[in-house]
């Protein structure tokens, strides 16, 4: 009986514990199949997180340096495979800036329409996936149904569902297919309905809001310091959108607003994306109403391929075709930095040409790269469960981050 106090003491003794290091990904559904997170846990709290990337590295830059300027285009599809058109057009605009080229008005409008369709695609995927990974499967299905409609329109426009390779240096490789505009307008109506469904399921959903509000927080100075752009930066309350600050194509002729958040948390990032979906709808409708007639590609056979009847019937046509296919567009030696606003932020291109038919250097500033670099800051000291919505709302795309 004299041992009783000791047993009592042992029962009350503090359990020995130690920090646990776990691997999340790369084959984990919430890591989108490409990122490995090395997480040190104390209980359920993340002490340290170290994202390891590169599982999807394909040597994008090295490949581009060894093909012609036009042949890089299919590689750019694979950067952000959810919104390939924006990569295509961003890259082409950078090459055009390097040449010093102005593209036809109609091509600019079609580039805006294509980009905004794919911006919707990207935001729908992101919003739907957040719903899915927080347990709301139906929201995901509505979002994917809307995305499928957009993908069908893109398929009709470009001939491919994902890897569009649309556009050429100097404009576009083909005009809109007949009847496409009407289909797009009908699609927009349907997408608006589906978007309302998604919003109805998520925005005021208690469980969803509790998981999203106040998690994945980043302060504005930190966001700027890391180089956040796009919806992730705007959710912090910074009104910064390249479409407004440095208008390219015809964005200065279109009337739209840039939604800005307040708190820099997951919920604000979600709201900014939902609001941007509505703005995309507005932009596309205006661009369609203002769409001018005319050519979609410049008439300069040193840069753009000649029409097929000229290739078959004239010697000049054959020669230009041959030169362009075999040697590529002759871009003058020099360098340029050009950027466009992609779905997740600033998509920048720093191109160097040595005057040969192929790029000397293709630097791509993928919007997801700096955002992913900031993820440890957003989740360290927070619960493990907050990692999933945080990783979703930043909408990191493996293809562009890992090149």
């Amino acid at each position, binding site marked *: 009986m004299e041992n009783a106090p000791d047993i009592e003491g042992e029962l009350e003794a503090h359990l020995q514990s130690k920090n646990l290091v776990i691997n999340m990904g790369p084959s984990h559904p919430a890591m989108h199949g490409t990122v490995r997170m090395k997480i040190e846990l104390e209980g359920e709290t993340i002490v340290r997180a170290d994202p390891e990337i590169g599982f999807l590295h394909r040597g994008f830059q090295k490949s581009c340096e060894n093909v012609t300027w036009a042949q890089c285009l299919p590689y750019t599809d694979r950067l952000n495979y959810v919104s390939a058109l924006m990569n295509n057009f961003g890259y082409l605009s950078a090459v055009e*800036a390097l040449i010093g080229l102005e593209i036809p008005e109609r091509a600019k409008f079609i580039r805006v329409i294509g980009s905004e369709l794919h911006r919707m695609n990207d935001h729908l995927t992101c919003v739907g996936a957040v719903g899915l990974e927080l347990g709301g499967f139906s929201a995901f299905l509505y979002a994917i149904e809307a995305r499928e409609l957009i993908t069908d329109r893109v398929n009709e426009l470009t001939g491919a569902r994902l890897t569009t390779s649309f556009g050429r240096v100097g404009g576009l490789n083909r005009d809109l297919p007949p009847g496409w505009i009407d289909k797009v307008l009908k699609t927009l109506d349907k997408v608006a309905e589906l978007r309302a469904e998604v919003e109805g399921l998520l925005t005021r959903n208690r469980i969803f809001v509790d998981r999203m509000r106040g998690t994945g927080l980043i302060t504005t100075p930190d966001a700027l310091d890391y*180089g956040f752009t796009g919806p992730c930066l705007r959710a912090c309350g*910074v009104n910064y959108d390249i479409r407004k600050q440095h208008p390219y194509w015809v964005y200065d002729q279109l009337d739209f607003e840039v939604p800005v958040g307040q708190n820099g948390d997951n919920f604000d990032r979600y709201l900014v994306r939902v609001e941007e979906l509505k703005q995309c709808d507005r932009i596309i409708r205006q661009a369609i109403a203002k769409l001018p007639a005319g050519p979609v590609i410049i008439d300069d056979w040193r840069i753009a391929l000649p029409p097929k009847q000229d290739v078959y019937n004239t010697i000049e046509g054959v020669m230009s075709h041959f030169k362009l296919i075999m040697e590529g567009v002759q871009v003058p030696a020099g360098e340029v930095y050009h950027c466009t606003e992609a779905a997740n932020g600033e998509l920048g291109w720093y191109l160097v040409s040595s005057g040969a038919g192929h790029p000397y250097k293709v630097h791509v500033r993928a919007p997801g*790269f700096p955002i992913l670099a900031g993820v440890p800051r957003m989740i360290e000291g927070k619960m493990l469960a907050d990692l999933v919505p945080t990783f979703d709302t930043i909408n990191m795309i493996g293809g562009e981050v890992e090149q």
Partner: protein
Amino acid sequence: MSKVALDTLSVKLSQPFVERYFDRSGAEWGVVHPNALVEVVSALKHDPGLDFKLFGSMDAVDRLMLPEPHPRFEVVYLIRSIPLNDVIRLKVRVAELQGEVPELPSITPVYQGANWWERFIWDFYGIRFRGHPDLRRILMYEEFKGHPLRKDYPLRGRQGLLPERPIKDIYRGPGTSSVV
């Protein structure tokens, strides 16, 4: 573009630029002396008149195949200012001395966003950043030898961690690491 910022820096610091020139789009670049780099970027970030707070990106160029291959590397810095609505384009030239790893001061203490880009440049060009907190490879694996975006690294210089079967590529010949 960026003229105001470059002028302000020239006045504020003594001779930070080796050269200033215009690129194809008419934007102005400042070539910074490596020793003045940290001073320049600190001024950019902290000077209230400049306020370049939004870190853009970094990359390097290997000039080996250009008409003027010396100095061999150029590291490019793109930083944004939201109040000035401007991008500043900076560049530092780094020579590769015989048997030495090219080196630059790290700007990660100033901009956290530079952390991953400096790792990227180390990984792909082999430029070491002095004072970087954690200079590891970022996309390639630790066992990888060499720096793949250098112009003297072969296009098909594969380094598989597991032995590859000698499957022939019908266009470019055998494509295994043992052949390259």
